[in-house]
């Protein structure tokens, strides 16, 4: 029996980005799902041939608009170690603040889209309403709502004055209130649980074998978080990775929801400990050698491989984004679920196709 074949994407209302799934289903149960890519591929890494290593900061910020700041952070940190530069302490703490603001906005964005994928429109609206406060913070502190161009090699470009930090703290209190109000629905609503519990289950072993990263891996009981490497100021802050055990969509939802609180906490800690001083150090010379840099993006571990030869242009810039690592899990999670759950499971990896394909 041939069953039903459905093209899911590239243009599809539940997919924020173009991705194609060739779905074979039978009585609305997925038999197989073959993904196809390339609808957002630009060939960004190749731009390193014609943009010098400083200009590339602006390019890597646009690998993905949702985690732009952390892309630039990873890239800059890689070059800093390659060139032997130590950014000043204030810059390291500021980097944490913006990173965590980014995580907040990304997770809220994801929670909203996730709610929308299971047909919970009003939850989507409420979450995005809260998210707008983060966007305002981004704009007020970095000059842009989405793409935060704050990183430079050797530090950051913008500083926060005490008025701004105070305002951030009061805004965060509001955000926290809004999140708490929605927690009941997100974590305890019958219909939400019905749509997420037991869907797209990965065991701890499967998740490790498939190379999952970030919340995907943490929802399966693995406490893996690149922030534990202690880059920027994370080594001086107090936090523990959020871990869930069930490995289903609901667990992923719980992880990301809990990370909202964790991010708020990290921002508060950073503002509390924010040292005085310069925000960047002057950097001279050109990079030479090769290095692997890693950082924790909202979606998980991001890896940059940089190879330089002492010239203006990098020899090779390779970006392995977290979604790229999480995609193989889809081929395991999709078969056997209902068609209606495809968007839910698909979104549960928090796909960022723009990252994946670059």
């Amino acid at each position: 029996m041939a069953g039903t074949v459905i093209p899911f994407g590239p243009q599809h209302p539940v997919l924020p980005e173009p991705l194609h799934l060739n779905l074979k289903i039978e009585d609305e149960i997925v038999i197989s799902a073959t993904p196809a890519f390339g609808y957002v591929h630009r060939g960004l890494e190749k731009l390193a041939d014609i943009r010098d290593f400083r200009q590339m900061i602006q390019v890597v910020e646009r690998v993905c608009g949702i985690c732009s700041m952390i892309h630039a952070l990873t890239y800059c940190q890689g070059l800093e170690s390659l060139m032997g530069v130590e950014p000043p302490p204030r810059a390291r703490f500021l980097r944490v603040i913006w990173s965590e603001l980014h995580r907040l906005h990304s997770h809220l964005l994801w929670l909203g889209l996730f709610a929308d994928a299971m047909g919970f429109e009003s939850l989507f609206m409420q979450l995005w309403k809260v998210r707008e406060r983060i966007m305002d913070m981004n704009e007020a502190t970095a000059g842009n709502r989405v793409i935060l161009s704050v990183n430079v090699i050797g530090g950051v470009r913008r500083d926060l004055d005490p008025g701004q930090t105070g305002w951030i703290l009061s805004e965060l209190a509001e955000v926290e209130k809004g999140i708490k109000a929605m927690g009941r629905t997100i974590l305890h609503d019958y219909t939400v649980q019905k749509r997420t519990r037991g869907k797209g289950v990965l065991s701890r072993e499967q998740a490790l074998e498939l190379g999952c990263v970030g919340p995907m891996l943490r929802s399966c009981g693995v406490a893996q978080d690149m922030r534990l490497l202690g880059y920027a100021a994370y080594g001086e802050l107090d936090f523990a990775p959020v871990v869930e055990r069930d490995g289903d969509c609901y667990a992923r939802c719980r992880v990301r929801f809990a990370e909202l609180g964790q991010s708020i906490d990290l921002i508060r800690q950073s503002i509390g400990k924010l040292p005085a001083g310069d925000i960047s150090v002057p950097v001279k010379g050109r990079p030479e050698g090769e290095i692997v840099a890693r950082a924790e993006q909202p979606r998980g571990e991001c890896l940059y491989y940089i190879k330089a030869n002492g010239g203006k242009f990098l020899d090779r810039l390779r970006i392995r984004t977290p979604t790229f690592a999480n995609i193989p899990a889809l081929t395991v999670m999709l078969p056997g679920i209902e068609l209606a759950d495809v968007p839910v499971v698909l979104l549960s990896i928090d796909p960022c196709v723009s990252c994946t394909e670059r």
Partner: protein
Amino acid sequence: MMKTTALALAVLCAAVLLGGLLSGIDRRLTARLQSRQGPPLIQPFLDVIKLMAKERMVTNPWQAFSPVASLAAAAVALVLFALQGDLLVILFVHMVGGVFLVLGAMASPSPYSQTASQRELWQMLSCETLLFLIAGALYLTTGSFRLSELSALPEPLLYRLPLLFAAFFFALTVKMRKSPFDLAGCHHAHQELVRGVFTEYVGPYLGLLEIAHWLEVMLYLAICSLFWATDAKGMILLPLAVFFAVIVLDNVAARLTWRWMLGWGWGASFILSAFNLFWLKG
């Protein structure tokens, strides 16, 4: 004869206006529940007028046939209702609307519209059975399927049909294509089947179906008013209350799957209704 025709026309005009307005209220209320302001109340009319003036485009001629038949079925059913006809006949005529909606949707090569029509069939199954049980209850209480007998009842039907009323609420949610049962098509497109059965209807055809949907919702609300047919106030307030309840439910629930709808939703509703009928018979 003239009088009947005039009445029929008046009822249709009123139903279209009221149905559109209710749809406007729905959108506005939904927006308020989502912390938004929402569109003006006449937005549904603007939408339909715009749709009617768009380009005609079909992938299969049946897509042009179906909306007309679907709208007409809803209109005839509503007129028969206004004329206090036989509830069974009204339900049979009303079924035609769903039949043609599905036929048109299945005629297109788009897998979305076709998959959605399978779901629409399950939805139809759920709604129709419950409506026919209401007709049965009507018969058991009044000894007739004619609506005209209802006003003579000493007390509202709701007192004797609480379980059936709950089942009706389920059917209304399904019919209004509201969460948690917006499975085969809904008013916004964010679902796995795009816009479900409506995906392939373009411009004027979608416009006709939109009006047909208003009329169907009006018919359902009219059937809802039967539960309180002894008192004009109740006949208006009860459907309105139910309408608002559906909208609120839409905003506090995620979409469930059609298997859940068929298994738990319809299964429970059917058993409750059957139980109510036995209880009624005594």
